């Protein structure tokens, strides 16, 4: 039994520590210095409910002003005797029409374009743009940088995880060709999708000011082509990997041992594992669940306005009452087609950032982080010493199966033929 841990537990601890530090040293929330809403409402009595200069100035100061009164002002049921009401034209005045257009409440008919064309003023675009260039780019970018820095620190602290026992020279087939094919189909497309997505988000901030608009434009055109079309091999690879590996990734009692020892951090023994250990199962389910979510929102973006996802999802979330129970308001369920697209884009990017961070860690441990790990997905053959150290239960299963099939464990060097192991 190996005396050294895989180091995965240390890595989880390091990431958790960084997350705690990030939370402790998070930027302070902006002070609540908004004008009293009651005072604003009181001032509106002088205008019959219309907005006042104070409302406009408060918005210009960036305060969060409740604008619901603007929808209500001038309604047919409003008090006609209110001071300074709309007087001669009543509720059918021009402001009434413009307000209806402004708040997407007008009864419009369009000759082409459907519901999308009926939205004449869609101010959600500004909120989307602000969020995309603000919190999304900032926190998403730092998440990736932080992950890489954490891995670099981890490598300096822990070094490359070696193989404690001497190499046997005998190999077992860890992954069959079709498994490796699906893995690399998924991996290759995900890496290119990630890079093209990052160019699309960050090109304006970093490439354009440094290298000029021509290069940025060409990169964006190429990124769009790559991103749109590599979505299909990514989804195919995701389905293949799910079908082939889901059985091996169902949580079982060996995971309890694995997590109890934090992948080897607690105690001296390396925790036994089947084909996939607890950490790998986390990677698997992250890829499947986050990848499926990215695929869904990506399809919604690939076929604009055809697959709206959020209004119905928000309605389901509202029905659970969880958000309301936590003191948050209900989520909006009356979304314009454009808002559906904006939310799909933001969700797509947020989930992709999380998955990219996870995959960066996966790439690390599968390459420079652990000796012998790449062979599993490269040639498919791993040394028995490596298999015994990291997946002892799986190695036992393989050997039992070989014995049952009447085969002796062959002395076999990588690439000299496969032993049906899985």
């Amino acid at each position, binding site marked *: 039994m190996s005396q050294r841990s895989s180091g995965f537990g240390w890595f989880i601890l390091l990431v958790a520590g960084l997350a705690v530090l990030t939370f402790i040293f998070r930027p302070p929330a902006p002070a609540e210095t908004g004008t009293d809403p009651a005072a604003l409402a009181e001032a509106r009595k002088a205008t019959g409910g219309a907005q006042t200069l104070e409302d406009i100035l408060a918005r210009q100061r960036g305060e969060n002003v409740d604008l619901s009164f603007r929808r209500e002002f001038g309604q047919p049921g409003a008090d006609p005797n209110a001071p300074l009401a709309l007087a001669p034209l009543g509720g059918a005045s021009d402001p009434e029409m413009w307000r209806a257009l402004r708040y997407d409440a007008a009864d419009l008919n369009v000759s082409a374009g459907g519901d999308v064309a009926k939205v004449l003023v869609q101010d959600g675009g500004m909120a989307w743009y602000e969020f995309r260039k603000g919190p999304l780019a900032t926190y998403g970018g730092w998440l990736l940088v932080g992950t890489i820095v954490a891995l670099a620190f981890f490598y300096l602290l822990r070094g490359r995880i070696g193989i404690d026992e001497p190499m046997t020279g005998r190999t077992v087939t860890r992954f069959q060709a079709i498994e490796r094919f699906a*893995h690399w189909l998924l*991996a290759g497309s995900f890496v290119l999708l990630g890079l093209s997505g990052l160019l699309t988000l960050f090109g304006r901030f970093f490439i354009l000011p440094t290298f000029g608009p021509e290069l940025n434009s060409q990169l964006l055109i190429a990124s769009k082509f*790559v991103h749109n*079309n590599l979505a299909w091999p990514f989804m195919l*690879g995701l389905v293949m990997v799910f079908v082939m590996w889901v059985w091996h990734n169902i949580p079982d009692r060996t995971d309890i041992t694995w997590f109890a020892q934090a992948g080897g951090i607690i105690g001296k023994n390396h925790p036994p594992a089947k084909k996939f250990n607890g950490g790998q199962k986390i990677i698997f389910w992250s890829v499947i669940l986050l990848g499926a979510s990215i695929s869904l929102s990506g399809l919604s973006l690939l*076929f*604009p306005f055809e697959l709206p996802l959020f209004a119905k999802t928000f309605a389901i979330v509202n029905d659970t009452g969880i958000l309301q129970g936590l003191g948050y308001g209900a989520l909006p369920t009356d979304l314009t087609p454009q808002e559906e697209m904006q939310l799909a884009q933001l969700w797509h990017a947020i989930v992709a950032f999380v998955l990219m961070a996870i995959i960066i860690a996966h790439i690390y441990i599968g390459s420079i982080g652990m000796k012998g790990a790449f062979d599993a997905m490269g040639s498919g053959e791993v040394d028995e010493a490596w298999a015994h150290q990291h997946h002892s239960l799986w190695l036992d299963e393989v050997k039992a199966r070989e014995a049952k099939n009447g085969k002796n464990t062959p002395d076999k060097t990588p690439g000299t033929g496969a032993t049906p192991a899985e």
Partner: protein
Amino acid sequence: MKAMLSGFAAMILLAVGAWYGLNEMGFSTADQQTGANVRLD
């Protein structure tokens, strides 16, 4: 390494196939989001 290279090759083939096929089927942005009277070509 053959499986890895095969995966990458399949990735490229699928991407080019999707691009060509979807365009042929009329799923390009131009076909989907504009009408003939607003195109320059």
